[in-house]
């Protein structure tokens, strides 16, 4: 049997309490940590899987839930078919399982209501996850902050959190959603059907009542680089651009 973790261990067991498919490739998992913690919007946790022979695999996952949301920590994990950890979650993990986790982690890619705005969020694929925590945090705490989210995915059915995001957009309370589908025609008047580029970034900035105070970009390295170059190209100062890159 597994040993009790020492009191100082940053790792703790968290129980999966709920699983919900978000898109064909992305599923949300809610975790109830044995030692609950407060996180900030944008932070991530590390997950560690241990095989019977002691072999371990660890990966980082952003927290999708707002800090003030009850009901545990939501992670939204995209399945990479030839990956090691993400297929485990999609194929094996079940409600009631205990998974080792540590966190919250990350002290840079975070937004708190006190940071103010307007803020511009740009996410590609599962890179929307930490941005979703920021959008939810804003909704629950400080609707006065204008937020524009540009969310790039390949097709309409891959828009993670789609109903929730469109519902928030429909409120017209200062949250603006722009979807850009790279492999399908746009479906809503505000949306695009191409990759993120400078003109799209210029138009996203114009949607805000004044120039953004902070900009958060998240996704694959290629996506983040393209979005950062586009923003800098239309005059957004690099000092206000924060990035989180999911690696390759």
């Amino acid at each position: 049997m597994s040993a009790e973790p020492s009191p100082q261990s940053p790792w703790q067991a968290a129980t999966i309490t709920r699983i919900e498919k978000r898109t064909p490739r992305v599923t949300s998992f809610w975790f109830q940590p044995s030692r609950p913690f407060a996180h900030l919007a944008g932070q991530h946790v590390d997950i560690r899987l241990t095989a019977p022979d002691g072999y371990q695999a660890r990966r980082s996952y952003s927290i999708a839930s707002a800090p003030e949301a009850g009901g545990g920590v939501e992670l939204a994990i995209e399945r990479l078919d030839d990956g090691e950890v993400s297929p485990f979650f999609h194929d094996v993990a079940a409600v009631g399982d205990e998974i080792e986790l540590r966190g919250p982690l990350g002290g840079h890619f975070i937004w708190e209501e006190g940071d103010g705005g307007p803020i511009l969020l740009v996410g590609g694929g599962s890179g929307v996850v930490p941005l979703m925590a920021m959008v939810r945090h804003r909704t629950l705490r400080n609707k006065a902050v204008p937020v524009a989210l540009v969310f790039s995915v390949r097709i309409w059915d891959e828009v993670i959190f789609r109903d929730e995001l469109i519902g928030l957009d429909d409120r017209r309370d200062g949250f603006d959603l722009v979807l850009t589908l790279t492999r399908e025609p746009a479906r809503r008047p505000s949306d695009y059907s191409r990759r993120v580029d400078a003109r799209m970034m210029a138009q996203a900035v114009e949607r805000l009542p004044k120039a953004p105070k902070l900009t958060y970009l998240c996704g694959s390295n290629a996506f983040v680089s393209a979005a950062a170059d586009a923003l800098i190209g239309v005059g957004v100062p690099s000092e206000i651009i924060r990035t989180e890159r999911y690696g390759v």
Partner: protein
Amino acid sequence: MVTRGFFSGRRPPSDTDARIPPGQYLEQGFPVLSAGPTPRVRTEDWSFTLKQGPKPIKKWNWAEFNALPQSKMTRDIHCVTAWTKFNTPWQGVMIDDILADAGIEPPTAYTLALSFDGYSTNVPTKDLVTGKAMVALLYEGKPITPDHGGPARLLVPHLYFWKSAKWVNGLQFTERDEPGFWELRGYHMYGDPWREQRYSSDL
């Protein structure tokens, strides 16, 4: 704690096992991680400054710096996001040779590496000298791309890779061990991958 149903894993071949620190996995690619946009530093604008506290000791421009003796280092590197990459080949100027050109011995026990984009990271001076670290100018024989920290990045391969500051433009000797950008944001002050010193809560 054993995870229910996690069997296969992707174990490293046993002959490489000893080279992979705890909690790391072997990566064939070269992922890119950084806090902000990639700065495009032109070599015409590039410079490297040695400082003691706020006081500059010596400054080199690109041509002067490239004229210093260059060495090669091929090392395994370990990123805090858990990937390890074997045999990365670098070429650049050893910190020892930078100090020799400035005609100084290391004046203090601690150093902050400074970057063009305003970031910094702290490294004990002893981890930079005696052949342990360099300012790298080439990767795989070619100029380092901006994504990977070019024109020049620090290379301290025995520590987690965030210590190998990208877009490095100077070293500042400090009296105390002062946390840099990442260390102020929850990352470990030293960052030894073999002791899994990832975050400030790690011993």
